[in-house]
């Protein structure tokens, strides 16, 4: 019986900070003091914040230590694990709050992230993992699963917010020799890395979601399309799939139900447009990632012209809990109109960049103050770019707006992918927009003409404005061009620039105009 558990956060950022060395020294120090059978040293996924070096959480005290250096270990062990006193100088703190709230009580998709070892299926089973899969496969019909998901009100978390159950219901009744279920893990929206953290922190949860979803639509083959840059995600998913196979959770005739399922991983090679589902399908087939003309929609003709459902990682990580606890349980999260939680990544000028999972409808102010540790160095908030490059600039007056699909619509804004890039008063909105437009120009695939041509024009204008040579009419031209692109482009890439352009110009018009005066 262990007296304490210490969980080291293993992610890209802590690996770089030398977590493995710290962990080894920690273990050898424990051994010296004969504490190895009293203190259990474990590894877990990310704890939810970054730039804090090696971090570890200690139970049962629930204390988070940050920036642990090898030199701190003797003191940490002697204070916390021998004397039972919390070593205050290493506790994760920010200037505005004494301790960062990680909101574990209200988590769904990240409920185990930072608690269990993501590379060990037994730990996932130990917290009730794969119970939903067993329940779905042995006691629920496909229709019953789809109804439950529909009733839960779950909507796609990739950005568009399409109702998940409804999407499934188009494909489920189709008769086809083969159907596919595909996970879109080509997370390329600048500022968005929630899916990476879900895959790194709790890969089995995603797998369980995939199993249930594939069964619901009748797909016997599932793919996870992961962007090539996510090395750790790919490694952990591969391990998780191998373990699930060994435990008979996938494969042939699962739980004697007669249902077969194979899950494979496909790796991208760096193209933002592949986040668009038809482009993703093209890429998965080994082609250039050019979007297809819709209709036919992937639900009818997707991978190799077979019915295919494509869902986002976060969306599907919600499925096991919905099936296990029911739609009614799920509807207790969120607002009256929009159910569930949302995972946000918070970055930019905040004290503690990281991620959080909160109820739909949580305000921007709450997210920044409670989960981002407040504004960096107490500076004044100027704007937040919410939803990545295809997102919107929210000004100070919208700090108290509820963040969910419906409420944001009132302000002509969108929730998007969940990226929150916070900017303090020193940020230059015009140059930020310049950076966004440069990104779109670079990523435009060239399949349809409005998108590459439009992005070219937009870049010319914004460069002119940044150089101080713009005119006021240029702002209207930008909006007109972007609106035309939105109406005529084939996919969401060309339809997106209007969002940041309109919200930047409408909320910060004076800044665009001031560019001219300041440089004259």
């Amino acid at each position: 019986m262990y007296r304490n558990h210490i969980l080291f956060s293993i992610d890209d950022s802590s690996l770089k900070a030398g977590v493995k060395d710290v962990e080894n020294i920690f273990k050898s120090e424990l051994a010296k003091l004969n504490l190895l059978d009293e203190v259990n040293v474990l590894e877990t996924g990310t704890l939810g914040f970054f730039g804090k070096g090696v971090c570890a959480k200690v139970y049962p005290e629930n204390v988070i230590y940050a920036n642990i250096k090898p030199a701190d270990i003797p003191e940490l062990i002697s204070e916390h694990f021998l004397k039972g006193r919390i070593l205050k100088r290493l506790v994760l703190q920010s200037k505005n709050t004494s301790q960062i709230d990680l909101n574990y009580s209200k988590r769904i998709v990240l409920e185990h992230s930072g608690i269990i070892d993501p590379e060990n299926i037994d730990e996932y089973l130990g917290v009730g993992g794969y119970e939903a899969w067993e329940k779905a496969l042995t006691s629920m019909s496909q229709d019953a699963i789809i109804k439950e998901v529909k009733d839960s009100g779950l909507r796609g978390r990739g950005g568009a917010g399409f109702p998940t159950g409804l999407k499934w219901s188009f494909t489920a009744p189709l008769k086809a020799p083969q159907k596919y279920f595909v996970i879109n893990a080509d997370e390329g929206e600048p500022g968005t890395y929630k899916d990476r953290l879900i895959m790194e922190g709790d890969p089995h949860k995603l797998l369980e979601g995939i199993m249930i979803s594939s069964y619901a639509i009748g797909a016997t083959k599932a793919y996870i399309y992961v962007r090539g840059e996510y090395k750790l995600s790919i490694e952990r998913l591969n391990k998780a799939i191998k373990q699930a196979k060994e435990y008979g959770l996938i494969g042939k005739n699962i739980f004697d139900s007669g249902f077969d399922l194979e899950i494979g991983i496909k790796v991208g090679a760096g193209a933002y447009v592949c986040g668009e589902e038809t482009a993703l399908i093209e890429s998965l087939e080994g082609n250039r990632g050019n979007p297809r003309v819709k209709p036919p929609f992937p639900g009818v003709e997707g991978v190799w012209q077979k019915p295919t459902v494509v869902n986002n990682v976060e969306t599907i990580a919600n499925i096991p809990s919905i099936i296990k606890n029911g739609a009614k349980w799920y509807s207790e999260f969120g607002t009256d109109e929009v159910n569930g939680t949302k995972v946000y990544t918070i970055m930019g000028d905040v004290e503690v960049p990281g991620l959080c999972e909160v109820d739909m409808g949580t305000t921007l102010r709450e997210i920044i103050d409670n989960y981002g540790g407040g504004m960096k160095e107490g500076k004044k908030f100027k704007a937040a770019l919410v939803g990545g490059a295809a997102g919107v600039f929210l000004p100070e007056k919208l700090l108290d707006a509820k963040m969910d699909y419906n409420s944001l619509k009132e302000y002509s804004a969108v929730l998007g992918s969940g990226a929150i890039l916070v900017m303090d008063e020193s940020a230059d909105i015009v140059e930020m927009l310049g950076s966004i437009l440069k990104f779109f120009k670079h990523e435009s695939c060239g399949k349809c003409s409005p998108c590459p041509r439009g992005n070219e024009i937009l870049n010319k204008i914004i460069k002119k404005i940044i150089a101080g040579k713009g005119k006021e009419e240029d702002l209207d031209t930008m909006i007109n061009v972007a609106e035309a692109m939105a109406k005529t482009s084939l996919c969401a890439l060309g339809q997106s620039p209007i969002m940041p352009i309109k919200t930047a110009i409408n909320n910060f018009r004076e800044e665009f105009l001031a560019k001219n005066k300041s440089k004259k």
Partner: protein
Amino acid sequence: MYENILNKYQPDKDNLIYILHDIQDNDSQNYVSEEAINAVSDYLDISQSHIYGVLTFYSMFSVKPRGKNIIRLCDSPPCFLKGSSKLYKKISKMLNVKNGQTTKDGKFTLELVACLGVCGNAPVAMINNDIYADLTEEKIEKIIKKIDKGDDNVS
């Protein structure tokens, strides 16, 4: 010479991107050569032009020889806000290369890339397979110097 790599995969077209990654990762100049394209074309029975089209579509691939080390500096909005353009100038001056160019000694290639998904630690760069985060001009200079000396263990 590509057989060892090709034989690891079923000759299906949907393995193309996997195969190209593998070939490039094992190439001393970090690119996919015409010879490699021909070999893949034979193995998968797809045209050279299709493979060339795929290679030039995705930013992680190159059809030109590149340096031993590839510095992929993110310049998407979150890194831009945190000063990625200063880093670009610094690296560019230090190595005397611009975006997409390789140093004369063939050691480094500098590439500006889109979001690497490590935005909580912006600004970031990926050098070969490793992420370097919370970068400053001094930090990136040190890292590059260390790699230049052949020390792979840089933190």
